[in-house]
């Protein structure tokens, strides 16, 4: 049986970016990179009011359209549920806004594909690439969460807010069952820690958003930091869920 990889692309009003992202992914010919594998791209259209779904379908992706906006956590979890139901062995998450440089997809998937780890995180703060590293205030927030998560878990994470991640079947099962909804990226690391997942960071570069606005821009950085800190601390109190 061929190993199956699912590329999950959560998208909310990304009609301007989504086609280019899918075309970039398709042009990588990932199935060849990993030998004889089956690669599918799933766009989770998170209740967009524009033509995101149509553009994604036209570009050749599978599209799940949610009836209303669930937020990034709910959208990504939909991808995990699809991966679990369709028997995918690996899943990789790429934002639909063009921020993630998909040229690093192979590097992100490789450690998970080879069975070295359960989950990889693309980090923009690891050498040698060091491209666009977000705005000054957001960098402060990211470094703060990196310290907090490193203190609370066994992992030394440099980019806890990165959504550029790959997962194996174990993580697909876990996150299909429960995926944090409030501030999913940093919280998911704490959740993974509860299940003793092996995590590795992979150096990547990220780009500035091609079009549109990032939802995080509207949060006051400090308020956001306080809320995420509470969410992470509360996550630490939870215990693993039974299947």
């Amino acid at each position, binding site marked *: 049986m061929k190993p199956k990889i699912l590329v999950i692309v959560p998208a909310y009003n990304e009609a301007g970016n989504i086609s280019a992202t899918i075309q970039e992914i398709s042009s990588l010919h990932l199935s060849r990179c990993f030998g004889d594998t089956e690669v599918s791209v799933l766009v*989770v259209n998170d209740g967009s009011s524009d033509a995101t779904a149509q553009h994604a379908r036209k570009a050749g992706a*599978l*599209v*799940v*359209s*949610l*009836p*209303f906006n*669930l937020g990034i956590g*709910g959208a990504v*979890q*939909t991808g995990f*549920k*699809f991966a679990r*139901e369709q028997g995918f062995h690996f899943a990789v998450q790429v934002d639909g806004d063009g921020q993630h440089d998909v040229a690093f997809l192979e590097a992100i998937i490789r450690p998970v594909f080879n069975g070295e780890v359960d989950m990889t995180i693309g980090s923009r703060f690891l050498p040698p690439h060091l491209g666009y590293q977000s705005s000054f205030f957001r960098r402060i927030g990211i470094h703060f969460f990196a310290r907090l998560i490193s203190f609370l878990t066994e992992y030394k994470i440099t980019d806890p807010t990165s959504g550029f991640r790959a997962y194996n079947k174990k993580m697909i099962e876990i996150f299909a069952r429960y995926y944090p*909804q409030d501030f999913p990226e940093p919280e998911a690391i704490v959740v993974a820690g509860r299940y003793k997942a092996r995590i590795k960071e992979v150096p990547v570069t990220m780009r500035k958003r091609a079009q549109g606005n990032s939802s995080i821009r509207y949060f006051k950085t400090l308020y956001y930091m306080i809320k995420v800190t509470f969410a992470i601390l509360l996550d630490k109190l939870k215990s693993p869920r039974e299947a």
Partner: protein
Amino acid sequence: MINTKIVTVMLACAVFFLVLDLIRREKLTFKYAAFWIFVSGGAAFFAIFDRVLFRMASFLGFQLPSNFIFFTLLSVFVFLGLLMTIFLCQQNSRNEMTAQKIGLLELEIEQMKSRKVLDNEAGKDDS
């Protein structure tokens, strides 16, 4: 004193009958109405048998029965607020699960439809 009793009993009866009417018109389910029926029953009981209320207040160390009433009401509403937040969160996560299921089922239906079209076309070619 009699007037206060009458007003309280009337208010409790109004709440009680309003809740019954809401259940009858299917605007409220018994699960959520039970609390209000209990509250209106309790209010009517304490209005009629106010000595019980005075004794309870003095037993619990309240200097004035009115303080006891306000404290009890405040506690009940804090508890009710918390309970409502729990229900709200439950509904929210159920909504999310339903939305995800709808999205996934839609994709499954689309895939089945396109497979059927392909099968039909292949059938036509064969014949």
